[in-house]
């Protein structure tokens, strides 16, 4: 009886010691785990699913061949492509649009692409003032 009471009180004291230890550690020694966000930025991991990017080949030509597999595989159906042919009778995307407000960042589009034209970057600050701002056209997706 007495032994169990002492054990319980000891456990309570251990709890107090633990919180005090963390208090001293944070106050004197270390840095809190909080990230002071706008000043300090988080660096995403290499495989982070952020904003998409359309790639160019070494000659500066768009890699995309407008096969529309990305649009077909997209579960959220947020990719809209219009196709056209250029002077060499090659297919290309005359308009390529991703509605980022509907995108679920699953990365299937990247996996589906047969020519590796699409990539997901680490960009995660995607807030916009308007809904129209969430529609990324080809120029914005081809950015450097």
């Amino acid at each position, binding site marked *: 009886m007495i032994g169990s009471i002492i054990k319980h009180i000891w456990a309570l004291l251990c709890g107090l010691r633990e*919180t*005090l230890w*963390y208090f001293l550690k944070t*106050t004197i020694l270390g840095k*809190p785990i909080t990230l002071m966000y706008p000043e300090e930025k988080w660096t995403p991991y290499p495989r982070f699913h952020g904003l998409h990017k359309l790639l160019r080949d070494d000659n500066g030509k768009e890699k995309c061949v407008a096969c529309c597999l990305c649009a077909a595989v997209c579960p959220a159906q947020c990719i809209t492509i219009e196709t056209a042919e250029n002077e060499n009778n090659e297919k290309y995307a005359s308009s390529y649009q991703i509605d980022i407000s509907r995108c679920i960042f699953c990365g299937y589009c990247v996996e589906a692409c047969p020519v590796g034209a699409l990539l997901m970057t680490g960009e995660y600050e995607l807030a916009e003032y308007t809904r129209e701002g969430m529609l990324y056209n080809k120029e914005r997706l081809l950015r450097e």
Partner: protein
Amino acid sequence: MDLITLSIMLLKIIVVFIAMLLGVAYLTWLERKVLGHMQVRYGPMRVGWHGLLQPIADGIKLFFKEDIVVANANKVIYVLAPFVVTVCAFASFAVVPFGNELTIFGQTIPLRIADVNIGILYIFALSSLSVYGLTFAGWSSNNKYALMGGLRASAQMISYELPAGLSIIGVLMLTGSLSMVEIVNAQKDLWFIIKQPLGFILFLICSVAECNRTPFDLPEAESELVAGFHVEYSSMKFALFFLAEYAHMIVMASLVTTLFLGGWHLPFIDISSLHPTTLIGQLVVSLLPICVFGVKVFCFLFFLIWLRATYPRLRYDQLMKFGWKVLFPLALFNIVLTAILQIFNLL
């Protein structure tokens, strides 16, 4: 009472009131900061240096919020409740001796607002009255959560006031007086925490319960009752409840300091026996007790916050069981023990 005494009295009241308000404001800052650091966070950082202006920002925000009076509330009681709580919390501080004497320009000012010869009873009476405010708030809001909170507050207060009252009887037996000033003077050589360790621990637990602080914050158990008795309050009325809770903490901290931690006395050094001749020396001797008192109160407040960071809330039946089956018999035992030891002159 001549004009000088009257103006000194008024000045003391105003200074203490403002100090109390500031103390409450920065207690909220301290709580958020300490809790944050204990959880490896920063706490408030944005408003002012390390969030030092945060309480002011909070105050302004609460002041400009919409003041909602619930349609089905009992209007008179609903409006009255926060004022009852706040007045009780702030008025309790009137009998706390926060320093010895201030000697300045030939005037000797005792550093307390009132030396009532039943000071302890006065504080206990007011803290009992403040539970009416909580119950009023719970009842008049016409909300099941608020009502539960109010009921819990009253039941908890009854259960914990009893052991709290009984645990200080040992101190009163040693002092032979109910006056706060007498109790402080009786601890000149030895603090009552050493003579009354059991009484101190019991009163410590009960004071946490009376402030409605974690682990005894059942009246406002947010995970069960949304916010408890003040769930329907907004704007300044909510702020008054908030103010009262923290003022109550300060009063309880000063009560523990006065009863068990020697009030404004320093250990081993008797400040009141020093009589320096220079003006600065006199001022230091006058202000040192206030600082000593403040440090002790601060330590107790830190302890309260520390408890909140550490322990989860008790279940309601555990709370009642603990109050009646553990604290109450122990408090009675403490009285008997103190009486026996005093008869044989061992204390």
